[in-house]
């Protein structure tokens, strides 16, 4: 949901963040105790003890960073209940369970007593590699695997030290087992009984981690810790925040991006029962809107409906999808910066030629929980409740709006109903807007927390889309399918230009997120030219980012070359992988073996489709069965081969691959497009913007290549290969390749 980040650029990235005044805030260590105390009260009768909290001021833990101190991450109650704080946003991807699994493994906790909760914008909860609060780019497990193991091991060492002191025995005589320390002569103490004493022990810097062969939690298919709450309406999300006296705000926004507010008549809106205030507020991108603050959402929308507003869009760019495509085609013919270069001379002489143009529309994230943020202001303090993928950035943005110091802002990260990238924007648009409204409401004399809530229409028309893209390819190849020259052009808005990632993503005028997934791992002589037109439609990363379009282009074109040269698409890809890409080979072979590809005889009217793609350091291969039913492509069965190194929770890996594939399937369905006419977004709700429903869902089996290597991403890699695998099956049936998403049969 965020671009892949080049690790070598990390120090620069962090520096960039710091220069922009991002808060890297550390609570005084003693306040973990307070935090812990509050949690204890909230969770039940047993006070939760923060591990290592009382070592503050002592020397032993000083060499450890906040991200390495168990105190911020693990609390053990007197009854043995272990609460693990996650440094990420849980929005479906399962980190609420997987991160506690990793910590509990090394802690040797009793898994049945492990609980999970969200963190805040505190500095302890930054990504340990990137140094910023970040949920995205399928990084959560990848970047926090060692961190959470070490945290668990440190806490365990402190419990052992406490037990050794209690029993006055050599620590080497002790061992742990499922939440218990066992000592000589049958001695036994539960972690809950030791927690307080363990707190007083120094935090060890160096710890020995388990041999992966001894894992008993990591790698086990484990039910989600939030399954019960999420199956009974008892799970609170950001939208469910209810503070005493809380008001709700909705915002009237211009229908054309960038239009100016020319006149406001709010007399009727103010007269609506329950409306408390009507406020002009600055919006993202220098725009202005009108917020209606009321007792509840319904009253606020009634007030908004009663507003009489005049917008001036005379001087504003009005993007129109049809004209945009014409413009993009014209751009594709111009010279531009090159991502890759190769000799294109063989194009003139190649025995076989292929020319193709692909078009991909804007896409909305359309997460099920509409965007929202609740803000409570008191003198010199702000507290926010929001499902944020970037709590630190959001806190910094809030501080700037509210004229506070970053340490005066607390962001309470809330469970979120999906996100797919939309809950992280570089401008923190949702949070900034909510803070502007809270500030204006307070200035208007309303001393109440304000929840700003977007309607579905606000969300869908509000921009921050996966950009529209045009691809053009001219390929010369021989009768054996050897590519002799491949001339390729991509046209699309840059998502990272102007963002915190620009410095290390945009090079030589090319946004790396637009080209990720091109060419590699195939050894192709490719020349890749890129154009990034500037338009006023806000764009953003969207689950699996550049691979949402590059995988489709690469995997359908290679399939077409295989078809044109009468080669099996699996054999053809394997030949290209050679022996250099074992993970690609293994993932594809697993999908092939489990699907029955090449062995099973398909029902009449069905065809196989194959695609494989690496993104976020993991490889997913699909072998699918599809048909054309009543003139419409239908997907019947999907077999996935997944290589994500060690699968921490195979049950989640399966869910993430299926889920990402459903988003990939959505992209293929008629109506899955955001289009603009004269600057106005034409879709506003799920009646106009198609997403996959249960009736679109194929039979779906996920198989994971066994591995003990450190885990790689899994939130996104399941998305990119679905559409090309589906498209390749359809092309085999119709003989005509699919060149756009959503699918359009010629």
């Amino acid at each position: 949901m965020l671009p892949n980040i080049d690790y070598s650029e990390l120090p620069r990235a962090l520096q960039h963040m710091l220069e922009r005044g991002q808060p890297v805030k550390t609570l005084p260590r003693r306040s973990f105790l307070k935090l812990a105390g509050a949690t204890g009260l909230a969770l039940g009768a047993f006070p939760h003890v923060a591990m290592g909290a009382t070592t503050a001021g002592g020397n032993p833990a000083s060499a450890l960073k906040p991200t390495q101190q168990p105190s911020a991450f693990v609390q053990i109650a007197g009854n043995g209940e272990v609460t693990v704080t996650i440094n990420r946003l849980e929005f479906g991807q399962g980190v609420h369970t997987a991160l506690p699994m990793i910590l509990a493994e090394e802690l040797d906790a009793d898994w049945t007593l492990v609980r999970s909760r969200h963190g805040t914008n505190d500095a302890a909860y930054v990504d340990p590699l990137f140094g910023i609060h970040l949920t995205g780019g399928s990084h959560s497990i990848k970047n926090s695997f060692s961190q959470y193991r070490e945290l668990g091991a440190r806490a365990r060492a402190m419990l052992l030290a406490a037990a050794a002191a209690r029993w006055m025995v050599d620590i080497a005589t002790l061992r742990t087992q499922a939440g218990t320390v066992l000592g000589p002569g049958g001695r036994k103490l539960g972690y809950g009984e030791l927690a307080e004493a363990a707190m007083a022990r120094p935090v060890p810097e160096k710890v020995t981690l388990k041999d992966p062969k001894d894992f008993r939690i990591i790698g086990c298919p484990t039910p989600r810790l939030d399954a019960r709450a999420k199956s009974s309406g008892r799970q609170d999300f950001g939208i469910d925040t209810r503070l005493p006296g809380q008001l709700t705000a909705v915002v009237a926004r211009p229908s054309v991006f960038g239009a100016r507010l020319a006149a406001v008549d709010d007399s009727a809106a103010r007269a609506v029962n329950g409306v408390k205030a009507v406020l002009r507020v600055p919006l993202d991108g220098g725009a202005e809107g009108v917020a209606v603050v009321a007792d509840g959402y319904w009253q606020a929308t009634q007030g908004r409906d009663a507003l009489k507003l005049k917008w001036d869009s005379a001087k504003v760019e009005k993007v129109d999808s049809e004209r945009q495509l014409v413009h993009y085609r014209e751009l594709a013919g111009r010279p531009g910066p090159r991502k890759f270069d190769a000799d294109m001379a063989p194009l003139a002489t190649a025995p076989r030629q292929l020319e193709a143009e692909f078009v991909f529309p804007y896409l909305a994230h359309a997460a099920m929980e509409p965007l929202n943020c609740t803000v409570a202001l008191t003198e010199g303090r702000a507290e926010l409740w929001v499902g944020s993928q970037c709590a630190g950035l959001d806190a910094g943005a809030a501080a700037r709006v509210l004229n506070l110091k970053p340490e005066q802002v607390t962001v309470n990260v809330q469970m979120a109903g999906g996100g797919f990238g939309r809950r992280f924007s570089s401008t923190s648009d949702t949070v900034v807007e909510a803070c502007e409204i809270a500030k204006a409401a307070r200035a208007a004399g309303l001393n109440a927390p304000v929840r700003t809530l977007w309607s579905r229409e606000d969300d869908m028309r509000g921009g921050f889309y996966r950009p529209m893209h045009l691809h053009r390819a001219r390929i010369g190849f021989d009768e054996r399918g050897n590519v002799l020259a491949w001339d390729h052009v991509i046209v699309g808005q840059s998502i990272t230009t102007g963002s915190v990632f620009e410095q290390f993503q945009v090079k030589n005028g090319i946004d790396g997120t637009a080209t990720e997934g091109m060419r590699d791992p195939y050894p192709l002589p490719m020349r890749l030219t890129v154009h990034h037109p500037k338009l006023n439609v806000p764009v953003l990363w969207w689950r699996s980012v550049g691979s949402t379009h590059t995988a489709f282009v690469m995997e359908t074109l290679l399939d077409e070359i295989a078809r044109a040269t009468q080669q099996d698409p699996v054999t053809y890809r394997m030949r290209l992988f050679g022996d250099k890409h074992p993970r690609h080979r293994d993932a594809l072979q697993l999908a092939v073996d489990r699907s029955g590809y090449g062995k099973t005889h398909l029902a009449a009217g069905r065809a196989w489709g194959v695609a494989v793609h690496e993104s976020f350091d993991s490889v997913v291969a699909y072998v699918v069965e599809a048909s054309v039913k009543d003139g419409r492509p239908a997907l019947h069965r999907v077999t996935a081969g997944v290589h994500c190194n060690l699968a921490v929770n195979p049950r989640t890996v399966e869910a993430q691959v299926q889920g990402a594939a459903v988003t990939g399937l959505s992209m293929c369905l008629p109506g899955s497009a955001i289009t603009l006419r004269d600057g106005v977004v034409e879709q506003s709700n799920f009646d106009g913007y198609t997403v996959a429903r249960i009736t679109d869902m194929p039979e779906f089996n996920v198989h994971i290549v066994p591995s003990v290597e450190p885990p790689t991403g899994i939130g996104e890699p399941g998305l990119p290969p679905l559409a090309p695998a589906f498209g390749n099956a359809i092309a085999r049936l119709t003989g005509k390749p699919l060149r756009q998403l959503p699918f359009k049969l010629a």
Partner: protein
Amino acid sequence: MKLIVNNREVTIDADPAMPLLWALRDVIGLTGTKFGCGAAQCGACTVHLDGEAIRSCITPVSDAEGKKIITIEAATDGTDRVGAAVHAAWVKHDVAQCGYCQSGQIMSAIALIKSLPAGQQPTPDNIDAAMAGNICRCGTYVRIRAAVADAARTLA
């Protein structure tokens, strides 16, 4: 206005045109029922009105007056046999990812099972047809199918 919510009588002061969803969430404080689209397109707001699954986001609260309203909170609190079975199947199959749509999914699943003659198992087509109005952006559909079928089996 008097409502019967989860077998209790509740008196509220609200605009009769206010959708039942917002009466439940903002006035009564039952936030298990979710806002997804406000236009009966996604099913996140599904509740039972006199036993029938309805979209509370487009149902004026006045239409619910005097009728029996059951929300996810009561449907899964163990007092309803079908609700308990569906809840248990949802947990067993680990259906939820983000979980936001699942209240609505579960209410639709309960209504489907209750609509069948006692002991009759839903066919795959029955399940898809009954659940087609509930969008899940996380893509939990495979597990939803399995959980609905499993819940019905446990009740047979």
